[in-house]
C-alpha cells in the first residue's frame, strides 16, 4: 500500500481516455463502477472540451455484482455502437472491474460488432496514467498500422507521434512543430493520436520517419513502427533553444535535407533575451526541477545552458524513464529524485533551498508555502495549463514562452538590489508583493515558511534576530538555515550578529 494525499498520475484507464478523447471516431467502452465517470470532468472542466469524452461506462453497482456484470458490459457495447456509430472501439476495465475478471475483450469479440474492436489490458494496480496512454496508443497502432510498408516513400515526410488530450501544452506544441517542420521542407503525413482517426493510423507507414514529441506516450509505438516499417524516429525533444537546434539538425539528417539551411530557419528571441544585461541577475540562481521525465530533463538543460541557473535538484515521477533522468542528473552533479510521493519531493525542495522551483502543480503549492517563486513545466495538468493564448513549450516560440514564464516569477534585477539597499523601507517590506505582481493582493498575514528546527539548535540572540529581519525575505529562510548550520558546525550555542556575518562569509559564493 502506498499513502497518497496527491498523485502525479491517474490510473492507466485515464491514460486510455486521453487517447480516445484525442482521436476522432474512436469510442471507449469502459467496464467501471458508478463514480468512475468523474474522469469526464478532467476533459470538460480542466481542458474545457466542448464535447463529452467518447467514453461509455458500465457504472455497475453492488446489486449488479450478484447478477451479471458481463451482460451489462455487452449491453453497453452494443448501445454505444448503435448510438455513437464510431469507426472503431477500444474496450477495457478500470481498477474495480479488473478484479471482476469479466474479460471485456472477449465479451466484445463475442458480440460480433461491425467495427474493429481493440481490447486493452491495463493493470491498474501496477501501472499508471502515462503507461496506460502509451499502451493504448501502441495497441491501436499495432492494430491499424500493421499493413504492408509502402514503396517509394517521400524521404522528407514524417508523422508526429505523442500528443494527446489533457497533455501539457500538446495542443500548441503540435501547431508549433508542424510550422517548424514545414518551414524546413518536411511534410507532415499524420499527427497522432491528437486529431487522428483509426483510418489515419493505417496511413502511418506512408511517412519516411517519425517525430516523437512525448516519449512517455509514443516511445513504444515508435519502436514498433521502426521495426515493422523501417521508420527511424527522433530522439531529441525540441524544448529549449539548444534542443530545438539539435532537433532540427536531427530531422534534417533523417529527411536528407541540408542541415545548415534548416538551422537558419529557427527564429527565437529567447537566446538574445538571456544574453541581454537585464538577465545578469539570473546568474547562478538555484533551481529545483521536478516533472515528467521529458520536461524535467529539458528544463534542466535550459536552466543551466540557456539561462545560467544552477540546477540544485532534478527529479521525476516517471519511473519508466528513470534511467534517462538519472543520467541527466549526473551531468549536473546531482542524484536524481525518482519518486511519486509528493511529500518526498517537498522534503527535497526544502533541503535544496532553491530560489526558483520548476515543477508540477504540486510543487507550485509547495513553493507557495515556502514563499519561493515557481513556474509549472509539466503535467499533471490544471485548468491554468490550458491558457486561452497560444503558448507552446516546444519549438522557437516555446523557448520564448519558457523564458517569460520562468523569469517573470523572479525579482527583476534592479528590484533585487533596491531591496538590498533599503532593507527597512516602509514599502519594500516582507509583506509587500513584488511590484510586478498584482498590487491588490497585499496580504501580510501569511505564515512564515515552515522552518525545520532540530532539537538542540543554537539560539538566536535578539540583536542577531533583528539583523536577520533586514535580509530580504525571499532569502531569509536560507540565511537562517545557513547560519544555524554554521553555528552547529562550530559548536556555538548562541547566534550573534557576528555569527550571522561569519556564516554569510562562509557560504558566500
Amino acid at each position: 500500500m502506498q499513502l497518497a494525499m496527491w498523485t502525479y498520475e491517474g490510473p492507466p484507464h485515464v491514460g486510455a481516455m486521453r487517447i480516445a478523447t484525442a482521436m476522432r471516431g474512436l469510442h471507449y467502452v469502459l467496464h467501471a463502477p458508478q463514480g468512475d465517470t468523474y474522469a469526464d470532468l478532467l476533459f470538460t472542466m480542466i481542458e474545457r472540451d466542448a464535447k463529452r469524452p467518447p467514453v461509455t461506462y458500465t457504472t455497475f453497482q453492488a446489486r449488479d455484482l450478484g447478477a451479471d456484470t458481463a451482460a451489462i458490459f455487452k449491453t453497453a457495447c452494443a448501445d454505444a455502437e448503435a448510438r455513437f456509430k464510431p469507426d472503431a472501439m477500444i474496450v477495457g476495465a478500470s481498477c474495480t472491474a479488473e478484479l471482476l475478471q469479466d474479460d471485456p475483450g472477449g465479451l466484445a469479440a463475442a458480440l460480433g460488432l461491425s467495427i474493429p474492436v481493440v481490447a486493452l489490458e491495463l493493470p491498474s494496480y501496477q501501472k499508471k496514467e502515462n503507461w496506460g496512454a502509451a499502451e493504448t496508443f501502441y495497441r491501436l497502432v499495432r492494430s491499424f498500422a500493421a499493413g504492408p510498408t509502402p514503396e517509394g516513400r517521400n524521404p522528407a515526410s514524417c508523422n508526429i507521434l505523442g500528443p494527446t488530450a489533457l497533455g501539457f501544452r500538446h495542443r500548441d506544441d503540435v501547431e508549433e512543430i508542424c510550422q517548424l517542420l514545414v518551414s524546413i521542407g518536411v511534410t507532415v503525413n499524420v499527427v497522432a493520436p491528437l486529431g487522428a482517426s483509426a483510418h489515419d493510423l493505417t496511413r502511418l507507414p506512408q511517412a519516411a520517419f517519425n517525430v516523437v514529441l512525448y516519449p512517455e506516450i509514443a516511445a513504444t509505438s515508435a519502436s514498433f513502427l521502426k521495426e515493422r516499417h523501417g521508420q527511424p524516429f527522433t530522439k531529441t525533444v525540441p524544448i529549449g533553444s539548444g534542443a530545438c537546434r539539435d532537433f532540427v539538425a536531427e530531422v534534417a539528417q533523417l529527411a536528407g535535407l541540408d542541415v545548415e539551411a534548416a538551422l537558419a530557419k529557427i527564429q527565437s528571441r529567447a537566446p538574445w533575451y538571456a544574453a541581454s544585461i537585464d538577465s545578469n541577475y539570473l546568474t547562478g540562481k538555484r533551481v529545483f526541477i521536478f516533472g515528467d521525465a521529458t520536461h524535467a530533463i529539458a528544463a534542466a538543460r535550459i536552466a543551466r545552458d540557456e539561462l545560467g541557473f544552477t540546477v540544485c535538484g532534478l527529479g521525476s515521477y516517471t519511473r519508466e524513464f528513470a534511467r534517462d533522468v538519472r543520467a541527466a542528473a549526473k551531468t549536473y552533479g546531482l542524484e536524481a529524485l525518482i519518486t511519486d510521493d509528493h511529500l518526498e519531493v517537498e522534503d527535497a525542495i526544502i533541503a535544496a533551498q532553491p530560489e526558483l522551483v520548476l515543477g508540477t502543480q504540486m510543487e507550485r503549492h509547495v513553493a507557495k508555502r515556502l514563499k519561493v517563486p515557481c513556474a509549472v513545466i509539466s503535467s499533471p495538468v490544471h485548468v491554468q495549463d490550458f491558457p486561452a493564448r497560444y503558448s507552446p513549450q516546444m519549438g522557437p516560440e516555446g523557448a520564448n514562452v519558457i523564458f517569460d514564464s520562468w523569469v517573470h516569477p523572479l525579482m527583476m534585477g534592479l528590484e533585487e538590489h533596491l531591496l538590498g539597499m533599503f532593507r527597512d523601507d516602509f514599502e519594500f517590506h516582507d509583506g509587500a508583493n513584488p511590484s510586478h505582481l498584482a498590487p491588490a493582493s497585499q496580504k501580510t498575514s501569511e505564515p512564515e515558511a515552515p522552518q525545520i528546527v532540530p532539537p538542540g539548535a543554537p539560539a538566536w540572540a535578539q540583536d542577531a534576530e533583528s539583523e536577520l529581519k533586514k535580509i530580504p525575505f525571499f532569502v531569509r529562510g536560507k540565511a537562517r538555515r545557513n547560519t544555524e548550520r554554521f553555528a552547529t558546525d562550530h559548536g556555538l550555542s548562541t547566534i550573534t550578529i557576528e555569527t550571522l556575518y561569519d556564516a554569510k562569509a562562509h557560504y558566500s559564493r
Partner: protein
Amino acid sequence: MTTVLDRTAAPATPSTLPAPLLRERGQREVFCGLTSIIWLHRKLQDAFFLIVGSRTCAHLMQSAAGVMIFAEPRFATAIIEDRDLAGMADLHDELDRIVARVVARRPEIRMIVLVGSCPSEVIKLDLSKAAERLQARGQHDGVRFLTYTGSGIETTFTEGEDRFLASLVAALPAQEQNAKPRLLVAGCLADVVEDQFRRIFTALGIEQVDFLPMRESTVMPSIGPSTTVLLAQPYLTETARLLQSRGCQLLHPLFPLGEEGTTAWLQAAADAFGVDPGRFEAITRPGRDRARIAMTRARSELEGKTLFLFPDSQLEPALARVLSREAGMVPIEVGTPFLNRQHLSAELDLLPTDVTLSEGQDVDRQLDRLRDAAPDLTVCGMGLANPLEAEGFATKWSIELVFTPIQGYDQAGDLAELFIRPLRRRALLQTGRA
C-alpha cells in the same frame, strides 16, 4: 437499458407521487460517495479520512476537489497495489504502517476514519475489523477509529455522508433514563447556517440542540428515546434508520430550503417541543420577511423559466419545490439518484403534477429528453456542463449546491442567486459566441 414506468406506488409509501416515476438503469454520470469527504473533512476539524482504495480513488479526490486545497487536506488514500492483491503483503500490516505515518504527520488528529472503496469492497477487505483492531491495540492513544463505505458500488455522492453519519451514530453514547428532551439536527450544514439555526432554536426556547456531525470528534452527543431528530439533508436514509433504531423520534417536514421549507422545518421542531405559536411567529417573522424579500427579487428573473435537473445529490426534489413555489420556475424533469419517498413525502406533495420525476439514470437517454425539452436552465454535474453550454444550454453545476450555504432564511436569496447567475451571465455576454 431498462426503463420502468411505475405508476403504482409501493404499498408502504406515505405519499402519492405527483407524476409517474421514471426509473432508469444505465450509465450514471454521478460521483461516488467518497466525494463527500471533500466537505466532511472541513466540517470535522480534528478528523482524518483515510480511503483504502486504488489510484482511481486518489485521482477522483484530487480532481473533484481541484488542486486548490489551501491547507494540507485531512484526507488521503492508502493505494492498494499489486503486491497487496497477490498476498505478498499483508493488507492489515500495510494499513497499520500507513495509519502510523498519518498519526506521526498529524499528531493533532483525534479521529481516523477508514473509508471503504469499490476495490476494498470487491476484495472484501474488512475495515471494521481493522478499525476495531487499531482501537483495541491502543497504540494511538486518544484517536478514535471509525469506518464506513464510500464506494461507488454502494453509494452515490451524498450517500457517502449518510454512511459516515451512520457510523458516527453507531458510536454515539446512549442517553440516561429520563433524559431531558433534546433536538438532534442531522446532516452537514455550513457553520454559518448551523449558528443561525442554533440562535433560532435558542430563541424558541429549545436549548438542548446537537448537530450531527459535530465540529469536533471528541464531543459526542448522547441519543435515545428523548431525542427528536430533524434532518437537515434529504439524503440521510441509513442515518435516519439507525437513529430510529436507537429510539429517536424522527420528524418529516419539508427541508429547510427557501422561506416555506425553513418555516415548516422549524415549525416541526417547535411543535415537537411545545413552543407557543405566538412565540414561533414572533421569532421567525423577521427571517421569513427577509427570505420573502430576497425571493421576490429572484422571482423577477426566474419566473416562468423552465428547469431540468440531472440526478446528483438527492436535493433535487426539494430544490425543484423551492424554485417552483417561491421563484416561479417551471420544473420539467427532476432527476434524483435515489428517491426516499418517506423523507421526501412533504416535498413531493408540493411539486407540480406535470413534472417528470426520474430516479437513477441512463445519461444518454436523459440527454435526449433534455434536448427535446430545451429548458431555460439545466442543473447537472461537471462532466456535462461545458458540453451542454457548448450546445447552447444554460447550466448550473450541481456540486455548488452542496458546497454553498443554501439552507435557512438568510440563504434563500443565495440559493436563488445560484440559479440566476448563469442566466444573467448569458444575457450579459456580447462575445458573438455561437
